[in-house]
């Protein structure tokens, strides 16, 4: 029976809130799929922004689609969707984090078999907490590229104690 191994490749615990991006190597010769799990918040005094994703330290043309809640107070409504093309970065919605609270968000980002596909295809889930808690589900793509590294950026800086982990799956 083939074995499947789920490895923690790297975990970053934020100790310097002036750092605005973290780059992880994607060992595609070893792992076929990658999962990033992050518990993050904007640094104290920082400004709300989106989490940005890129690969190989280059900007590029990303497409993404998003299904999300948002825009209403407590109650029941209809989910909203959004489509974006030609973005310089893929984005995980980050708009609900506040600069002064202890709140933050959790995201789970998947990149599936990027070396084999010769492209970057992934999706993420993100929950953010403020007075209007929000759940996002986003897919994104960037074609004609074999990624060797993944960069996650937050322009305002991350709150000290935030954690981002990269996991790899051997199949």
């Amino acid at each position: 029976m083939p074995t499947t191994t789920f490895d923690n490749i790297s975990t970053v615990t934020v100790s310097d809130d002036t750092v605005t991006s973290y780059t992880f190597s994607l060992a595609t010769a070893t792992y076929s799929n990658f999962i990033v799990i992050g518990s993050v918040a904007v640094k104290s005094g920082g400004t709300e922004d989106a989490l940005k994703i890129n690969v190989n330290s280059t900007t590029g043309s990303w497409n993404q689609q998003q299904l999300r809640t948002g825009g209403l107070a407590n109650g029941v409504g209809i989910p909203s969707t959004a489509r974006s093309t030609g973005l310089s970065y893929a984005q995980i919605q980050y708009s609900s984090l506040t600069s002064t609270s202890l709140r933050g968000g959790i995201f789970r980002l998947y990149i599936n078999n990027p070396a084999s596909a010769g492209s970057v295809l992934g999706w993420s889930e993100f929950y953010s907490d403020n007075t209007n808690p929000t759940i996002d589900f986003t897919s994104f793509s960037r074609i004609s590229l074999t990624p060797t590294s993944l960069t996650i950026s937050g322009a305002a800086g991350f709150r000290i104690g935030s954690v981002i982990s990269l996991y790899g799956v051997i199949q």
Partner: protein
Amino acid sequence: MANTFFAIGTFRVSTPSVTSFTWSSIPQTYTNLVIMGACAAQSSSAGLKMFFNGDEASNYKYAEMYSGTTNTPEFQKSTGSDFALGNTNMDAPAADHNLGVEILIGNYSNTASYKNYLYRGNGGTHNSTTQQQASVGGGTWNNTSAITSIKIAKTGAAYFAVGTSFTLYGLA
């Protein structure tokens, strides 16, 4: 590099007399926690609830997208709720009405910020007409304490059905 997915503890229901499960003294040595479960109610349908560190007050909030009972997608958000898993509903009996649920709890041991979690539920069944719900959501526990215990409970008066099981994993 070592495998980093560890089973902390499993609960399995063998008699229909259980209304909740609690993992206590959770090791603080992992980065994230994952709960995977398959469950059903022993009689009437019910929802799932989750509490941290014995806090059953209104210190939770959540947002979710779920399939409604009228085949209309809906979303719901709740602040100040102790109903931390939204519309992850299960039906009865176990043989036909299992709910599969996965919960990811991030950075659970930190004491610098509130605790956030993501969850998915594939509720309902092949023949239920009222509880076929798929849900994707997330929530917050408004507390900076490290999570040392987790309780999974059900709404309503009935018990978890025999065959229900939940496992807590640590993710290094």
